[in-house]
């Protein structure tokens, strides 16, 4: 036993001690040095699960739900649990081959990993679902069915109004400050978008613990931080779904729009845009495909012409011209004008459709006969009003009137992306005519042509002003919100009354009576309704389009504006049918049917025949039709292949879908007003 080695024990002790100190220092650094590892651990294990509440339902004025939530089923796959499964049986039910099956499995694994379930087939059709439900025990746990709520539209109508729900994209995420998350659904257009916060309700959050393979294993801290989902609230609207369906029927195979408003409240009864589409096409798994072919359609079915279509108003503007002149005091109802078939006040004569004497010997007659000379003249009288020091100021005042009437400004309807139409301001003419212009320069404004465009909604609103004798409520759809509280301020703007003129009621009576004359004995006879006095005005708006780079005059737009009953107006309607000719030809009968349906609640047999007659008539410009049909054949073929399944399910929709995928033609933007046109 060599004693001197005894000292070596100290070295061994020191070695142990040093090693342990190294371990402890490292532990100090790890456990007390930073909170970084805390976050990393939470990041590993915590998963935040959003619980989606049911979206609110939208009801029409009679309490019918015009959209609902229905359940569809997705077939989900658990890639790890596939062993020993009857793959061929599954292929048979889904009507796919083995390669397709493998491809989908691999796709699912790539997308969500091996351990998390992914969608194998979304929104199963009814037959597939039934077959699967019966047999699912054979495929479990590799496959299972998962329900998913989607929107459904029992009336297949009001697509433009309701809008659609879709997955949020990155721009929306940024805009909403990341309130939404990837994979969330939100209203992307229409009422769905406008009332998104109300309809969506409040999302619930559940914090869950997941394991190393991303499988959920339980709730975090016994659900201490979880919150419950609150269902979205329902909306009651002014819409009358029967009228809406009728309006859409009337516009079938036509380009145009119908807007019907309740004058006392500004509530919109119906708003149709032609062509339209079945809103059910934009739900479920085929949404993207359907959307893309509709986007390519030359006739633009996704475009809501009622609030975005901008048309020269034509003669329908004349009642407003009268109101301005009356309010300014430049004429009285008795004011008359001798017209012999044209207006010669300016350099070039403006044609008038009437040549008989005394057809414009007072306001009522002039309006009833739609005298171009009379309204050109009173436009000039209003603009050249001596009290206003010159044309520029006069026009400025005139424009202010128009804006107050809701022309050239956004009315503020509760739909997104409304267009404002167009009323030129003074600087526009100053620029165009180098500051030397007079009331003759834009005299066409008096008869609704020239530097002026209006949306059908604006025209319907104008009818409300006349019906109400001087005021209007901003047109809107939503009457009330379920469980409305003071914090719901969205509807406040619609409760404000907009007074636009200070003309006494007696004078309004004259304008109204003149419009009644139009229906009784004038151009508006087509809109007559038995037992109800209708006040109306037809319009035939000239318009031009650029076709193959050449500016060409197109067939006139058919306008019709009206309200009824005249004594106690309940409905104001504006109808435009693009390139359909005279106002009385198509727009008039349609407006009449709409009013009758709304006021009488039913239509007689003969009137239904009229509906069918109008419905079956196709009024589409040959060039638009040609472009719709002249499609890139390859793309069309591809699209059709994608659609085969949907078509098989909805054979009725085939026609519409076959219109295909022409490049969007900016048909309306191409049409520019001009001052060298002839007018009726």
């Amino acid at each position: 036993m060599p004693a001197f080695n005894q000292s070596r024990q100290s070295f061994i002790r020191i070695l142990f001690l040093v090693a342990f100190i190294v371990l402890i220092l490292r532990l100090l650094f790890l456990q007390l040095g930073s909170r970084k590892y805390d976050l990393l651990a939470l990041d590993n294990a915590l998963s935040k699960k959003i619980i989606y509440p049911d979206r609110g339902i939208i009801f029409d004025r009679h309490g019918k739900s015009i959209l609902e939530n229905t359940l569809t089923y997705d077939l989900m796959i658990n890639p790890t649990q596939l062993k020993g499964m009857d793959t061929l049986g599954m292929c048979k039910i889904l009507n796919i081959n083995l390669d397709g099956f493998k491809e989908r499995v691999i796709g699912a694994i790539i997308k969500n990993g091996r351990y998390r379930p992914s969608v194998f087939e979304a929104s199963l059709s009814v037959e597939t679902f039934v077959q699967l439900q019966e047999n699912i025990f054979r495929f479990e746990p590799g496959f299972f069915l998962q329900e998913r709520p989607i929107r459904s539209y029992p009336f297949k109508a009001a697509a433009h109004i309701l809008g659609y729900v879709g997955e949020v994209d990155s721009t929306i995420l940024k805009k909403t400050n990341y309130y939404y998350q990837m994979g969330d659904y939100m209203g992307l257009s229409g009422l769905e978008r406008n009332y998104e916060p109300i309809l969506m309700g409040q999302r619930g959050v559940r914090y869950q613990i997941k394991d190393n393979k991303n499988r959920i294993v339980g709730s975090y801290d016994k659900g201490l931080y979880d919150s419950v989902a609150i269902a979205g609230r329902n909306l009651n609207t002014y819409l009358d779904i029967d009228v809406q369906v009728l309006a859409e029927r009337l516009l079938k195979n036509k380009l145009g729009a119908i807007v019907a408003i309740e004058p006392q409240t500004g509530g919109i009864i119906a708003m149709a845009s032609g062509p339209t589409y079945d809103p059910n096409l934009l739900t479920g798994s085929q949404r993207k495909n359907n959307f893309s072919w509709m986007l390519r359609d030359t006739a633009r079915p996704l475009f809501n012409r009622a609030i975005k279509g901008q048309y020269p108003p034509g003669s329908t503007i004349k009642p407003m011209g009268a109101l301005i002149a009356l309010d300014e005091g430049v004429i009285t109802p008795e004011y008359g004008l001798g017209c012999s078939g044209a207006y010669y006040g300016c350099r070039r004569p403006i044609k008038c459709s009437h040549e008989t004497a005394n057809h414009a010997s007072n306001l009522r007659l002039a309006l009833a006969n739609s005298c171009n000379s009379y309204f050109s003249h009173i436009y000039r009288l209003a603009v050249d009003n001596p009290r206003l020091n010159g044309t520029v100021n006069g026009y400025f005042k005139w424009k202010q009137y128009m804006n107050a009437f809701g022309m050239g400004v956004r009315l503020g309807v509760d739909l997104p992306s409304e267009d404002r139409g167009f009323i030129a301001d003074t600087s526009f003419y100053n620029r165009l005519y180098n500051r030397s212009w007079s009331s003759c320069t834009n005299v066409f404004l008096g008869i609704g042509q020239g530097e002026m465009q209006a949306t059908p909604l604006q025209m319907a609103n104008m009818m409300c002003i006349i019906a109400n004798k001087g005021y209007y409520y901003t047109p809107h759809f939503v009457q009330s919100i379920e469980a409305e509280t003071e914090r719901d301020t969205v509807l406040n703007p619609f409760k404000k009354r907009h007074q636009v003129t200070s003309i006494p009621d007696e004078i309004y009576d004259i304008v109204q009576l003149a419009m009644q004359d139009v229906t009784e004995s004038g151009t508006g006879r087509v809109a007559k309704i038995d037992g109800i006095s209708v006040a109306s005005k037809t319009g035939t708006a000239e318009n031009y389009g650029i076709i193959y780079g050449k500016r060409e005059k197109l067939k006139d737009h058919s306008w019709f504006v009206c309200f009824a009953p005249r004594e106690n107006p309940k409905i104001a309607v504006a109808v435009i049918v693009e390139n359909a000719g005279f106002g009385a030809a198509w727009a008039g009968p349609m407006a009449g049917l709409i009013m009758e349906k709304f006021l009488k609640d039913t239509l007689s047999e003969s009137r239904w025949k009229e509906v069918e007659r109008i419905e079956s008539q196709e009024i589409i410009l040959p060039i638009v039709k040609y472009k719709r049909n002249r499609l890139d054949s390859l793309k069309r073929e591809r699209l059709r292949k994608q659609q085969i399944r949907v078509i098989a399910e909805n054979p009725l929709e085939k026609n519409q879908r076959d219109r295909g995928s022409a490049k969007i033609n900016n048909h309306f933007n191409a049409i520019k007003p001009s001052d060298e046109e002839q007018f009726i």
Partner: protein
Amino acid sequence: MKNNSFEMSKGIDWTLIGVYVLLVVTGIASIFATTYRDEAIVNGFLSLNTDYSRQLLYFIICIVIGSVILLTDSKFYTATANILYVVGVVLLLLVFPFHTDIKGTQSIIRFSGFQLQPAELCKIFVNLALAKYLSTPDLNFKRVKSQLIASALVLIPAVMAILQSETGLALVYFSFFLVMYREGLPSPILVIGFSLVILIVLTLLIEQNLLAVILTLLAAGVIYELRRKIKRKRSILFFIIGIWVLSVGVQRFAIPYFFNSVLKPYQVQRIYATVGKDLEVDESKLTEQDIKKMADKKKAGNYNVKQSTIAIGSGGFWGKGLMKGTQTRYDFVPEQRTDFIFCTIGEGFGFLGSIYLLGLYLFVLFRIVNIAERQRSTFSRAYAYGVASVLFFHIFINIGMTIGIVPVIGIPLPFLSFGGTALVTFTVLLFVLIRLDADRQMILR
């Protein structure tokens, strides 16, 4: 009989046994905390389907074995040390024809549902045999021959373990050099060994040619510094030049050769990973299998260490509480019942829990050194140091690996890790020591 048992228990270090029980119970609790999955607890403990119940069973077996050891005469161990060593080596040899392939190791024999890992068990026999050899009367440990014999005793099982793909276990055997050091292995050997380690680390850290230049400059500097002494005594110069040649030879040729030809690529990669470097290998020289294996191992190794440091780091000072650790509860840390069991304590009980455990271990180590130093016989002392060295190596490497300061070497944490063979091995090592200590007045040969 009563008198007899009193005799038997005389001199037994009950404190050490108490700490041992504390450690094993901590281990079972940790295994329970990571693997318990809402089953009925009583049932879970009785069923033997759960890891914690099995570990409990191993513990009971260990208590039996420990009791038997305590009842055995100390002389039995000195008498049978050499035979047991031979038995151990034979067992190790039997592994080659009879091993079962489990999880990439070829070191396990399996018979009738029972698993045996001789490389693990052999630690006991090597320790006994080494103690026996070192306690040989008139042994001059200064002689190279004795040193070589002692080294051979230790290295034969180590080499076999390497051949059975158990590099980690093989490394454990090197801890016995600490025993030899205590028993008189000349310091220069340790100095050389230590210098070699530094040289290897430097080789890993610094680019080869640059290191060669540095070493050359260093040698030149020393020669310049000692130029007067060298004038007087030529041999110093040769000595320095010899060291220089040796160092450069090692770093420039021996280590690259060792890495390229002896170690597997993934092992080299792991070694590099610990010093924070990515290994650049010439992939053209590797087989496709090697490349894949390397990628897998790299991923697994990095993942393990990352997750275990997250687990321990997220424990903070107080810990998250028993079974509240998300990292260990939800399987983010791999092998958390076995090699990474320390994570459970680090996450669940934080810095306090870690200090508690390290404190227990340090207490055990120091206690064993104390015990060693109070032995009258060399056999007992050498054996005690063997136990301390093996435990120390296991503890330091295992905990060091979970907190990312040591390469990932798959060796268990003594008394805590799940696993029957390891628990039995450590128990036997410890209880034989306690038995020997109880008879410390005897001179054992």
